[in-house]
Structures are given as structure tokens and as C-alpha cells.
């Protein structure tokens, strides 16, 4: 595994580029991020916002079914309106992208930060420190993420901003496997000659960790982090679907699906749009994660033939 300097990064991009599926996935992810960032702009072009009620657009006599064909699709409301409230679906969908991607990214950053600190500390610390941190990590790994997140969300005061809270909760519980990977990788690197050389020339533990070990653990950490993002998206969506994650009026894809089954006949897009958005996002991120893994560890990938690209790299 090469330390990613300038040449390492270039090599990484070249290997990622040869995989067609990963490339397509990267473009899709880039588009999704763009949509999330440009949500206010996009809704401004449409002339709508995600929270305004439009009671005149739903038929209150029929329980709030959107008026008009295809669930109220019109020039003003590109994807129709939400049943009962009449809120604009396009606006809720693009603002939902902000919540889904933002929460998942923030949660992953927290997971990686804690995991790297705990993993490196366990590998470099004394025997006792290692034992304590490793056992603690084992316990964290044994606690089911969804269940703990669900339970923790019960006790935090509701005044706390909800998306931040969900990201923190997922991050604080889900760092166990990263810590294990980082510890194992650091232990391997610690035994290598160049680290021993650094120690012999009188470098302190902190400087060795920062200058010699961190670049070496970057590859597995990036690989694992890339695969964690889609998992975190699913967890956020699940929590919001259960009604304990992101609370209305903030739109989130999971939360939009909570009531969607009642309306599938009158307004099928109310179900299909958030479901499709979740599917495409998680799929693209998973394929991209696989691609990143192949690009960072081509030996393992070609041994297992996990790579989805058909063109093999000509020269390493």
C-alpha cells in the first residue's frame, strides 16, 4: 500500500477512472451533492419552498388528495404536491437531499475521527491502554447501531437541532469497526523499518503518529469511510421513517415515506420519489465505495475480481 503523496493521489485517480461503473456512480454522487447545495436556487427557479402549505391544492372533502392529474403536477409544482398539506414535493425532495447527505457525511466524519483516535491510541499506547480501548471498542461494536440510536434519541432534549443531533448520535455509536481497522493497520506499520528508523532518530510518539503512521492508514480509512456513508444514509432515513430522526417541518426522505403508503393510489410519486432518491443515492455511493476500494487496493480487488470495470489497468 503506497503512501498517498502527490503521485499516490494521481495513481488513485487513474485507477478509479478505469472503472466505468465507479465513474458513473461518481458523476451521480456529484450531481446529488450539487442538487443538495443548490436546493435554495432550484426551488427559487421553481418559485416554491418546502414548508408553505397550499390547502387550495388538495381536496379536503376526499381526505386531502392532491387536486389535478398525477398528484397535482403543474408548471408551478413540477413534481406535484404532498397530500393533505399541499407542500411542494420538488422542494421537499431537493431539501431532503441536504438532510440525507449532510447528516450522513457529518456522521461519517465523527465516526472516522473517533475511530482513528481510538485505534491509533490503542496501537501506540501501553498494554493496559490497548486492552482497555480494545475491550471498549468490542462493546461498542456489539451494540446494535439502529437500536442504540433509537434509544439515545429518546433522552436528548428536543430543543437541540435535530439533524445535528441525528448525525452526532450515529457518529458516536458507529465508530467501532473503524477503530478496529485502524488499530490493526497501525500495529502492522509500527513494526516496519521506516517507523523504527524514525523512532531511532529521536522522534516523539506524536510526531511519528502524525508524520509516518497517518499517511499509511489513510488508504483503509478512506475505503471504509466511503462504504460507511451509504450505511449512515440508510440509518438516518430509517430513524426519520420511524418518526424519531429528523422531525417535520424539516424534510427528509425517510420521513417523507412515513405516510406514503396511505396515498400510493392517489399520489404514487409521494411514495416513489423519496424511495427512488434513497435507492439511487445509496446505490451510487455503494458502487463508488467499491470503486475506491479497488483503486486503493487493486491486489485484493483483482484477486477477488470485485472490480466492476472490464478494462484492466495496463501498467501499474
Amino acid at each position, binding site marked *: 500500500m503506497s503512501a498517498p503523496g502527490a503521485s499516490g493521489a494521481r495513481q488513485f485517480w487513474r485507477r478509479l477512472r478505469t472503472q466505468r461503473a465507479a465513474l458513473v456512480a461518481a458523476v451521480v454522487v456529484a450531481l446529488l451533492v450539487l442538487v443538495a447545495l443548490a436546493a435554495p436556487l432550484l426551488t427559487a427557479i421553481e418559485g416554491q419552498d418546502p414548508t408553505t402549505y397550499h390547502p387550495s391544492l388538495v381536496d379536503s372533502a376526499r381526505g386531502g388528495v392532491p387536486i389535478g392529474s398525477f398528484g397535482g403536477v403543474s408548471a408551478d409544482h413540477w413534481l406535484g404536491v404532498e397530500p393533505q398539506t399541499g407542500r411542494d414535493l420538488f422542494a421537499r425532495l431537493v431539501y431532503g437531499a441536504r438532510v440525507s447527505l449532510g447528516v450522513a457525511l457529518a456522521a461519517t466524519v465523527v465516526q472516522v475521527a473517533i475511530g482513528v483516535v481510538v485505534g491509533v491510541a490503542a496501537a501506540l499506547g501501553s498494554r493496559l491502554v490497548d486492552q482497555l480501548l480494545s*475491550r*471498549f471498542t*468490542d*462493546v461498542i461494536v*456489539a*451494540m*446494535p*447501531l*439502529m*437500536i*442504540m440510536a*433509537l*434509544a*439515545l*434519541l*429518546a*433522552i*436528548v*432534549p428536543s430543543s437541540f437541532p435535530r439533524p445535528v443531533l441525528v448525525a452526532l448520535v450515529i457518529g458516536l455509536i458507529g465508530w467501532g469497526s473503524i477503530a478496529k481497522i485502524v488499530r490493526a493497520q497501525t500495529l502492522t506499520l509500527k513494526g516496519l523499518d521506516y517507523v523504527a528508523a524514525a523512532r531511532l532518530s529521536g522522534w516523539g510518539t506524536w510526531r511519528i503518529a502524525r508524520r509516518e503512521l497517518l499517511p499509511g492508514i489513510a488508504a483503509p480509512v478512506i475505503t471504509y469511510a466511503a462504504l460507511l456513508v*451509504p450505511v449512515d444514509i*440508510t*440509518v438516518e*432515513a*430509517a430513524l426519520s*421513517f*420511524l*418518526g*424519531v430522526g429528523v422531525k417535520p417541518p424539516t424534510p427528509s426522505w*425517510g420521513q417523507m*415515506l412515513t405516510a*406514503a*403508503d396511505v396515498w*400510493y*393510489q392517489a399520489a404514487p410519486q409521494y*411514495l416513489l420519489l423519496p*424511495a427512488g432518491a*434513497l*435507492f439511487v443515492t*445509496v*446505490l451510487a455511493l*455503494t*458502487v463508488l465505495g467499491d470503486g475506491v476500494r479497488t483503486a486503493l487496493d487493486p491486489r485484493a480487488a483483482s*484477486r*477477488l*475480481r*470485485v472490480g466492476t470495470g472490464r478494462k484492466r489497468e495496463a501498467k501499474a
Partner: protein
Amino acid sequence: MTGFLARRVLGAVITLLAISVIVYVVFYVTPGNVAQITCGPRCSPAQVQQVAGQLHLGDPLYARYWDFLQGLVAGQDYSTGTSVQHCSAPCLGLSYQSDQQVTALILAKLPVSLSLVFGAMVLWLILGVGTGVLSAWRRGRLTERLLTGITLAGVATPVFVIGLLLMIVVCGQLQLLPFPQYVAFTDDPEQWAWNLLLPWLSLALIEAAAFARLTRASMLETLAEDHIRTFRAYGVGERSVIGRHALRGALAPVIALNANNFGSAVGGAVLTETLFGLPGIGQELVHAVKVVDLPVVVGMVLVIGFFVVVANAVADLLYAVADRRVVLA
């Protein structure tokens, strides 16, 4: 083997104790007023005072945790103002919002959740391992491409999305099945199975995708090993090489994944129960979280943690049986 067994069981017990300490500390050192939260939003100040007395909130935390452990092992008495309620052996406390004992509440809901998870597990192991073996066998052909695409889609679909779609298509549009309603196995085994069919499928399809990917990778790795080449060189048929020799070598990581995934499958079960309205512990947990019934939440988390830890221990044992080298390590 006996030493390994003893070590593993001891490890599981310690992990459980550690989980209980973390859960207890996190939930009873909350920023809010614990007595108020436990009692519920509609309690009068006098009732809150009484709950604070019952929970011994004046005592230091370790003393309360010790009481809690004693309750688990030996039972406990709770005074609810006028009468005294005895909570017997594995006592997880009282729900202050429904006046029920948490242990009884969980025991009443447990059969539903166990039916769901174990039924689905049978399905996802068969589907996942079967798909993985098939795509390793047909490597490079159209079958493998199709299966790889399908499993990738399965990995990317949240369990509640596939559940929603299945329910709408099968029960709503095609009307092949009625909307699921839980029937106890002891009442009517046939109805039990029919009503659980869709929840089983929703949970199993998603989990099976992960297993298919792992089984395929593990099979391909095993197929590249020398002893497989030796079998082939001796003229052992491809069917036997794949189905007997390679599969055996590839199964160990699958067993490990099954244990690791048990936790996430329990999370999936919570979603499935909520979606299909099955009265299991997942649905109860979501309810308890929404009304902030702390003793119920803590009890549920501990019981689920118990199952996950036991699943991990069992997997380690199976792993050791499948691969004798593990015992020596």
C-alpha cells in the same frame, strides 16, 4: 475446547455487563430531570417526587446500578403509593407510563420478534448463500452479471422501502395476500406463516444481498486455493468441487457475517414490525422512545444487546467447529 468455551462465555458475560453499565449510565445521567422523564410529561410534581423516591435518585449512581443488578438477579419490590408490587427474578424495572413490569412487557412481545427474525434468517441464509454460490459458479457469464446487479440493488434498498413496495403491490394492487396481522404460532401455525410471509421476505431480501456478496467473494477466494486445484486435477466434478469442497472452506466468513449482521437485522426487524404493524419488541421500543418511557427503553436495549452478544458467542463456537485452527489461536 472446554477452555475455549469457558473463555468465550466469560467474555460474553463481561461484554453484557459492560453494555449494561454504559446503557445505565447514559440513560440515567441525562441532561434532563430523570424523574420527570421517567414519570412522563403528564405527571404532577407530587408524582414526580414519588418516582424520584422510588428510583432512589438521592443515592449515588453506582448504588442505583447495584440495585438494578440485584433486581435482575433476585427481583425487587416497588411501592406504587398505596400498594407494593413485587417484580420477580429477571426484573428490569417498572414502566411508569403503563404500570407494567418491563420484563412481562418484553416477554409478551418477544414471540413476535423471534418469529420474524428467525424465520427471516432461514430465508436470507438460503437465498444469500445460494445466490453467492451460483454467481461464483457461473463466473463471467450472464447469470453472474444479473445476480451481481440484483444483489447490488438489494444492498442499496432500505428494508422499509422494499417492505412498503411489497405490501403495496402484493396486498394492495394484486390482493394476493391480506395486509399482515400477527397470529400466534400456537393459535394457528398456517395463518402464522401466511401473515409473516411478507415481513420475512422484506427483511430477508435485504440481508440476503449482503450474504450473496460475501459468499461470492469468499467462494472465489477459496476456489483459487491449491487444494481445490488438486481436487480438479484428480478429476473431481465441478459440481462436487463447488458444492462440497469450496463451499465448506467459504462458509466460515459467512458464519461470522451472520453474527455481525444480527445486530443490523434486529434494527431491520424494528422497521419491519413498525411497517407491517406487528406487535413485537421493535414496535414497543419505538413507542417507548416516542413517549420517553425510560425503564422500557433501557430494558429493551439490554434484552436486544443480550441477543446480539449471544449470537456473537454462538457464531464464534460454530466458527471453531468449522475451522479447528481457531481454537488454538
